[in-house]
Structure formats: C-alpha cells, structure tokens
C-alpha cells in the first residue's frame, strides 16, 4: 500500500507516492537524493537528521513522510543554496568546527534554529542547545566557538546597520 503525498521541499513542490512506514529522512535521502540529511541512530538521539519542518527543527528519522504531506520542509541543501547559513558555514570552516562531516549538517541546521530563537546565546546555552547533536570527532568546543562567533558577528552587523 502506498499513499500520495505533496509537500514543499527547499522551495520546490514535490508529489510522490510512498509507503506509510517510510520516514521523512529516508524519503529525503532515497526519493529526493537529498543526502545531506544523515542517519546516525534512527531513534532521534544523535541529531544527524535534523531538518526544518514548518520552520522548526525536527528529527527526520522520527517523522513519517506522510506526516510531512502539506508541509514545508527545508534541508541543509536548501538553507545552503538560499544563502541562509552562509555566515554559519564560514564560521564553521574558519574554526575547523567539523572533522568527518557526518554530524555537521544536523549541527548547522540546529545552530540556524538556535540563532533564530536566541540571537546571542551564552556559551552554556549553545552547549545546551547542542545536547541532542552527537559529534565524535571535534569534542564540541570548536562548534560552540563557531556558533558564538556567528552570533557575535550578526549582532555587531545589526548594530552597525541600525
């Protein structure tokens, strides 16, 4: 049995027929070849599969594709291509806040959501906000630094243009 779903992914209308059990993560990766969304645990513990659903970060492994029907989904590819995370990407690159790159896309999606909610988070707040994103390579400090630096830059740019 399959179900027809229709949703907006990275600004594009998508219509597909899927099995009800297919996760949003598998749908994005296998049907749409959006392989920037990664799978690390398939139980919502590692954060590698974070995407924006209706603008809010969700674990794409815990959402069924059919639940996303009628919704708007944005993945790291979409955020990257519309320039929404260019400063975060530059800060991560400059601070070497990634090694193998597997957690990175989920980290960036989460950082983007965090800075939307809390424009200038304290260091502890950043660490707390990342508490659902597992990284085995970096030890986290560089990631915290990169997010803090992006927040600082955004704040000072906003001040300069005010």
């Amino acid at each position, binding site marked *: 049995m399959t179900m027809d779903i229709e949703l907006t992914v990275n600004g594009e209308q998508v219509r597909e027929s899927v099995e009800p059990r297919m996760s949003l993560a598998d749908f994005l990766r296998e049907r749409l070849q959006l392989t920037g969304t990664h799978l690390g645990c398939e139980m919502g513990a590692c954060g590698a599969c974070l995407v924006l659903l209706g603008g809010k970060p969700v674990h794409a492994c815990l959402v069924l594709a059919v639940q996303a029907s009628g919704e708007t989904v944005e993945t790291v590819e979409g955020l990257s291509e519309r320039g929404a995370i260019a400063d975060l*990407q530059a800060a991560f690159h400059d601070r070497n806040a990634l*090694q193998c790159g*597997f957690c990175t896309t989920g980290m960036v999606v989460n950082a983007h959501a965090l800075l939307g909610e809390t424009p200038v988070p304290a260091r502890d707040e950043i*660490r707390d906000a990342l508490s659902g994103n597992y990284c085995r390579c970096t030890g986290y400090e560089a990631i915290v630094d990169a997010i803090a630096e992006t927040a600082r830059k955004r704040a000072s740019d906003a001040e300069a243009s005010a």
Partner: protein
Amino acid sequence: MRSSDTRTISARDPHIGQAHRRETARRHLAGRGRFVTDIALPRMLHAAFVRSPMARGRIVEIDTSDAAQSPGVVRVFTARDLNPLCQPWTGTLDHFASMVSAPQNLLAEDEVLWAGHPVAMILARTRAEAEDACELVMLDIEEGEACVDGHAALAEDAVRAAPGLDSNLCFQTVLETKAVDDAFACAAHVVEGDFVFGRHTAVTLEPRAVVADFDAASGQLTVHHGTQTPYQFQDIYARHFALPESRVRVIAPDVGGSFGMKLHLYNEEMATVAASLQLGRPVKFVADRLESFVSDIHARDHKVSARMALDAEGTILAMDVDDMTQIGAFSTYPRTSVAEGNQVVRLMGAPYKMPDYRGRLSVVFQNKVQTSQYRAVGHPIACAVTEALVDKAAVKLGLDPIEMRARNLVPDDAYPFVSATGYSFEKLSHEACLSKLRDLMDYDALRAEQAELRQKGVYRGIGIAPFVEITNPGAAFYGVGGARISAQDGAVVRLTPSGEVQCAISVTEQGQGTETVISQIVADQLGVSPEQVKVTTGDTDTTPSGGATWACRGAGIGGETALRAGRKLQGQILALAGQILQSDPADLALAEGHVVDANSGTRRMPLAEIGRIATYRPDTLPEGADNSLTAAQHFAPSGYPFDFTNGIQASLVEVDVETGIVRLLKHWVVEDCGRIINPLLVDEQIRGGVVQGLGPALFEECLYDETGQMTNASLADYLVPMACEMPDIVIGHVETPTNDTILGAKGVGEAGTAAAGAAALNAVNDAIGPLGAQIHQTPMTPLRVLKALGHV
C-alpha cells in the same frame, strides 16, 4: 641534486606550520558530503543479516523458505551457500608467540559465538524489505553455556568460547627486568590497586558501510568501503576471494568517523562482497545502530592488578602489573586483538625513570563482541594505572602530585632513553611539558581555590597525567608478524599543464585534515600555495599503495612521503627549467608559482610556462631534455622503531557527593608532537581525542548481562559524551622534531585519548580522597562514585 635534498624545514617553507583551513569542509557544510551510505548504484540490492539472539549455541535448523518468498527478496544466503566462496581468516600473527584463535568465515556454520553473530543474509530491493524477511527466517538454536567473565573463562573446566580451543587463553606474555623483586623487597613504600576498565566502542556517527559491485563481464570488483585502510582491504578481498589484485578496486570516499574501528575485517563486509560476486550485482550493507553495537569492535575491557615500589624520597623503583583483557570469541583480523594488551604492558610507567618492571598480560576469549584496536590502543589503560599509582604514592609520601612527577619524569637531557619495558625514546620533553602545564592552568591558584571551596562543602579535584604516545610505527611493526599491512606510503606528484599541482597519496582522510596537511607540505616543495595543490586519497586505482591512516602515521610518514615526492618533482622541474633558461639548475628555485633565481629571488618564468612547454611544445626543448613533470616516491620509516611523542594532561572536576555526579569543569593539555604542520588541525585532533578519552572515563560502557547479552545497545542507552557535559580544553605545545625524517613531524591523533581518562580518574580521586573514598573503575558512573563514598 635537489631530489636528494635533505635540508631541514625553514622559513623557505612558508606553509608548513600555518593554520590552513580544510577545503573539503566546505562541501560538508553545504550537505555535499559523499559517504558510502549515500551511494546508490543501478540494480543495487540491500543486505540485512539474521543474527544470533544468544551468546552461545548450536544451530539446529535454519528455515529460510518463508523469507525467500517475502516481497522484494532476491536471495537468502546461509553459511552453506556463501562460506565456500571465501578463504577463512585467522586473527593471529607470528610475532605474538603461541597465540591462538579459531578460523572465521562469513556466516556462522554450526555454532553461534556471540549475541549478534550473523547467521543468514537477506538480499532485497530495499533495506526495509530485507529486514522484513529477516523476521521470517526460522532459526532453531540450542542454547549453550556462554563464557562471559574472563577470570572464570580461565578456569580449567570452563566451557570454551569457540570450537577447537584447548583453553580460553588467546595469548600470554611476561616482560621482566632482573631486579624487579629486589626493588619491591627494598622499597620504602609500596602502593597498589585493582582496576577495572569497561568495554566501550567507537560509535562513529556514520556506521560501517560498504557497497560491493562485481561486474562479471570484466571480472572487476569495485568496493566502496567506509574504511581508513583501502589497500589492506584490496589485498584481503583479492586473497580471500581468489581474485587478481588488479581486478579489485577499493574506494574510501568521505568516511564518517573511523578511529581504528573501520580498519578491521568484519563478517558483514566480507559477506557483502561475496554476495555481489555471487549475484553479479551491486550490494549495499549499512549497519544500523543496533548492528553497530553488536558487531563493530569493542575496546579495552581490562582488569588490572598493579603495584608500585618507591624509595623513601618518592623515587619510583619498579612496577609489577598483571593485565587480563577479554577479547570476545575470536582475535580480530588482520591485526589481532593482542596489540591492545601488548601496548598496555609496554607503556606502563613510560614517562618515568623507573628502572625495573614486571608486566604480565593474559588475553582471554569469551562469548562477546570482539575487541581490538581503537584510538590510543592500550594507552588509556597504561596511563590510568600508572598515574593512579603515582597519585597514591604522592598521598602516602605527602608530596604534591606535580612535585611527585617532577622527581620521577625522565629528564629532558637524558635522551636517548630506554624504558624499563624496552621502548627506545629518541627525544621527549616531559619536564618542559610539566612546567608549561603548571603555568597554563595556574596550578597554585587552583589548589588554593580547591581548598577554599572544600571548606564550603564543594568537592573539586585536580588530576595530572603525563603520557607517552606511540606514533609512526616503523616498517617492521606488523610486517614482522606476517601481516600484509604496509608501514610504507607512496605519493605521485605532478605539475599540470597549467602549472598547478596534483598529489595522489596513500594516506587517507577521515576529517583529521590529512589532505590539507599534504597540500601544505607539497606546496612548499614546489613554490605554490596549498590551494593550488589538489590532493587525491582513498582509491586503490588512482593512488600508490601504502599503509594509509592508523597509529598516528598520516602526518609523520605520509607527510614525509609527500615531502620527498615534492622535492623529487622540484628537481625535475628545475632541471627542465635550467635547460629552457640555459641556467644551472642549482642556481634556480621555486617560489610563488615561478622558477626564480635562487639567490636574488628574481622571477625567471612561471610554472604555468613550464607546464605549457613540457605538455604542448616539447618539440621546442633541447635535444634529450626530459619533459616528465610527474614524480613518484615511496617512503618507509627507518631509525627508531616508533616516533614516540609525549605530553601531559590535567583535569578539573567537581564531584557532587550527594548524587555521585562528576562535572568536568576544565581540561588542559600540553603536547609535543614534533614539527607542527598545521596548528589548527593539531589542536582539534587533541580536543577530539580528549573527549574520546573522557567518554569512557565517565559515561561509555557496553553493558552485558550474565548470559552474554548486551543490554544497552542503542544511542538512548549507551551514553556518549555530548556538548553540554564536556569542558573547554586549553592546549599548549612543546615542539621537538624527530631527526629520523626531514619533516620532523610525529603523530598527534591519539594523544588526547591517551591520558584524558587518567587525568579525570585522578581528579575524581583527588576530590573524594579526603572523604576516605577511592574509585578504581571506569566509567565512573554516579552509582560507582556513590559506592566508593559508601553511600550505597
């Protein structure tokens, strides 16, 4: 001759030592990583495995008829179908005298030997369909008694962990100096402890993944494999499946974490290759997280009894150590499960002048997942035991832990030095590191603050742990034992027609920045910028054969290979330029993309012009001129058997004595990895390594019940270190290049992991010691801390 140029690194190498950023990081940040898990090939099938639900048993019957009829299923394999395709493997090496291990093959034949042992393999159009069919395989296993505890396994009448074993002892060795018993007899003080180090595992965020693609028409097998050692697997696939090596290509694209876990051979990868050979179609296997926990190698699992003899002034006279390590039902292939324990007993007391030593190692089989090499092989155990005893001695003698170390560290002017366990150290810098650490952490102020807080019922602790790290193993390391594991590396460097540079090299990249480091080194030999050097890694068809990345050898051995290849090409370019410019090549050099006058730096011609002439107009060159702009170079380390490095770590913790929760407040590392090629990447290797050492000190443990079932095999139950629990890490450096190479770089990837746990253990004991409590087991869970405090 420039190609035999041995001049050392200097200001003429402007990029070595600089914090160049990693270009590949941009791809990952845009979601454009290319991991094996992302690969989908035409007609590709997905594999899932039926696994033993119990730790030990005899297979009575496997009925796959319903599974074979399940939607989407193409084939179901059991051992009878698949194992004959593969030459069995045995995880022993000759230099570990008398070690034993049973041979292994793809799928369990008559007996299952751990909970998770693969029994049947399903190939279907989708992974979901393959998993559905797994549920339909009727598996009748007669449960047998499992061998779970290592000490019990050594009893004479203990059930054997695998068929064909005379005992559950895989390997035993004793290292001993002559005067060790005298040292203990004469000692003014003896301190001792029994330590337990739990099992933990790598938990790479990208699980193990492989896509095997056999094309029967051409006889070509291409394996896309998330591994750090593609050449090793090319050799294994060729030999175990009787294929010509030239028809086996292994490609390691982006690899989502490895840490030693992805260089071992696993049943599932081998079965995936076998299935592709059998079906002539691409087959993909990606371990899910549960499968990772019950089939990726585990690490550590040691029980250590140790004592240390000291004289009245606190000079360490000797250590006497007994390490029992439990490795699962088999020793891993091709590196064995003995190397970990072997390094434990050889690294004990390594930073100290200690003249005498006895170390006994027993490596024991049991019915659990195999253990083997994982980041900082053996180091965390040796370091934790040594440093815990040094701290106990300091308490006994009433000495400050820093003073205790200052009295015993091998002095910086005492090199070369041979340790009591037989390791030869070229040049280490323990005293300089200790002194730098003391300043970096403002030690005296921290002690004052600790004392002040103690008055208020706040229990803080400071732990110190110097360490020695084994890096850059020499050419004989595995080879002497008969393993086909290369300790040399190779590079091909070429100047392109437009004057840029490409370097294909055998060391591999898993995010540590190998490619960036290589580009910096090559750039300096050819007078270009690192951005103009394109580095290719991880493909056995397009790069020369070599050892790849393990044992912290990427920068030291891979870097030296790149340096020598770059200098060879430099010589070729200058020879050609000399002919074009009618100058003596000795008067020419390469800088800023040009051939320049060696003395004045005046530009003579662009490299792009050399590339253009050599490629498109060789007819204009003088008679006999060699227009080759490609150089190949291999390098096998010689001199000292290892490039040992050293450093020291400190941990500051706060223990909540009511809940047993340990909070990591801060961590410091002073490290000496020889020549630093890229300080940014070095520091991030250290930080990542430290957290990988703190994880098992506080959280990570593979828990088993008495029947051999792993009871926490998910990321909700197995605790990995997360951002909110980890401290900021302050790093300092001392730089002592090795004289064994031109480059002078040693390794750094495992340094953080080597001593972080030891520092944390000492810090916790420093915090709870005044309450009369001591903890000797990791992870130091809240419950274990409360037990140590006598609260439960």
